[in-house]
């Protein structure tokens, strides 16, 4: 696969002709497919953004990168797949009315959320809380987070084996309308709209409610928040739970987009991209997670077109991440939840 990307010069003499470039930039392909790639990228980006919120919220209150969040997400995917399979969904799209499908999908999403929330809750209780009680160092938290991530992966491996779950197709995407000659289908529309609604709801929850104020207070100054009567432990659990709910929603959309993508270590790559999205937008920043997610999704797709191979999706996204961080070390929107105005 990589061989098609690299005009391998090994076979050639030392003087390599200039037109035989190392990497071929396929600008034509990018320009021809620009809009479809944009909308498809936004769809993936919406999924990254939902996962990214889980990283960002927990980082906001704990200054901890919860590496196990990728497993919180993949557990949600298992919840979604199990539910849909037992409802009779399989590799081919079901022959159901639209309302029956919507009902089933909502049910699957709720189960996915329960799987994710329970996972997040257990990770917080078993892994992080005991460390907090002992005032452990940041390094101890980091190692624990990685350990939790791998433990859950191998637990899933033990139960489900090394193969991906059989594909579940929810519905066949139908074209809805065209923008700049690109067809927007029902799947893209569902995912992007639902994800944005959820993210706006989360943002408003944090801005307007009492618990939201508690989250912001703990993020800005945990001791003073406690002096105000905020139960810090409960706020921390709440952020894990919110992250779990959003990861469960992301799980439904991911399975919708990639029906056969549920595998024990399948959270890893998505988790890394979502984490990159959170950092790109400004870790700890709710709106930044949305922006970062959408950008990572879109840029990845452009990179794939430009360089002609899906392996490059990730690389290009990370190159952009590094460039952004060089210019703005705190991410595009900075750390809103923690420091500046929220």
């Amino acid at each position, binding site marked *: 696969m990589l061989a098609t990307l690299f005009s391998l010069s090994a076979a050639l003499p030392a003087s390599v002709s200039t037109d035989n470039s190392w990497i071929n930039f396929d600008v034509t392909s990018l320009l021809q497919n620009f809009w479809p790639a944009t909308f498809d990228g936004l769809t993936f980006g919406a999924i990254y953004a939902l996962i990214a919120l889980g990283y960002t919220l927990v980082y906001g209150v704990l200054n901890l990168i919860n590496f196990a969040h990728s497993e919180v997400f993949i557990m949600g995917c298992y919840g979604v797949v199990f539910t849909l399979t037992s409802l009779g969904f399989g590799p081919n799209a079901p022959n159901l009315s639209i309302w029956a499908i919507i009902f089933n999908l909502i049910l699957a999403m709720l189960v996915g959320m329960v799987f994710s929330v329970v996972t997040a809750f257990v990770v917080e209780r078993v892994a992080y809380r005991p460390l907090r009680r002992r005032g452990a160092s940041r390094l101890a938290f980091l190692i624990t987070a990685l350990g939790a991530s791998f433990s859950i992966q191998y637990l899933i491996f033990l139960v489900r084996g090394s193969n991906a779950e059989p594909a579940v197709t929810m519905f066949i995407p139908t074209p809805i309308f065209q923008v700049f000659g690109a067809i927007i289908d029902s799947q893209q529309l569902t995912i992007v709209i639902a994800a944005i609604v959820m993210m706006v709801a989360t943002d408003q929850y944090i801005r307007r409610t009492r618990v939201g104020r508690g989250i912001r207070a703990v993020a*800005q100054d945990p001791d003073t928040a406690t002096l105000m009567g905020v*139960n810090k432990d409960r706020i921390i659990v709440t952020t894990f739970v919110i992250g779990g709910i959003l990861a469960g929603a992301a799980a439904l959309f991911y399975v919708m987009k990639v029906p056969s993508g549920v595998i024990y270590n399948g959270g890893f790559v998505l988790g890394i991209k979502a984490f990159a999205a959170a950092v790109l937008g400004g870790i700890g920043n709710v709106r930044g997670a949305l922006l970062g997610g959408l950008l990572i999704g879109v840029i990845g797709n452009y990179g794939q077109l430009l360089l002609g191979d899906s392996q490059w999706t990730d690389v290009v996204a990370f190159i952009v991440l590094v460039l952004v961080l060089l210019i703005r070390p705190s991410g595009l929107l900075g750390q809103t939840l923690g420091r*500046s105005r929220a």
Partner: protein
Amino acid sequence: MTTLLELKDVVVGYGRIEALHGLSFSVEEGEIVSLIGANGAGKTTTMKAISGLLNLSKGSITFDGDDISKVKAHVRVARGISQAPEGRGIFPGMTVLENLDMGTYGRKDRTGVKEDLERVFTLFPRLQERRTQAGGTMSGGEQQMLAIGRALMGRPRLLLLDEPSMGLAPQFIKQIFRIITEINEQGTTILLVEQNANQALARAHRAYVLETGTITHSGTGRELLSDTAIKEAYLGVA
């Protein structure tokens, strides 16, 4: 008078370093009690022990007749202990109004909250003028007002003030102390930690002197003001 707060043989440490070595003192309902001492004497540690941010390794703290040594910090706030911490602890990303609102976090009585907000705005008109400004952009003196106002929003029975005069200009210090007396006259018991011993003793009903984790002197504010040893050590009078 009834005893509102009582510390008995309180020992608190940071890891293996002991900061308070068996501290005992009390605050009666309705009093202003000042705790004075040099840098590193253990004043802030005492405040944190009372509010529950630090655990006791020995001794007990009684509030309103109940042993609260094992009660969680956020529950102590609901019981009626509010603190304006050292360094003020303003939430930088929240507006003045949101900061004040944080003081009511554990409260459910909306009408009472409204009354208290008016009371705070009467005590500190500046806060009302600046209510939409971000807490982090307020001046030091304004932040101190905000910290005290925010603590009052919890409608505390006991108000803990940790160095309210720190970093303030002389005329501002006078104003803050005048307001502290006013708050006390409105019925709130106050425990005041200060390095500005002159003002703290003049305003206090009773006072304690803390030296490296132990109480060395106690008496009425007036008594301590005229004590020669204290004059030399804390009042800058030779």
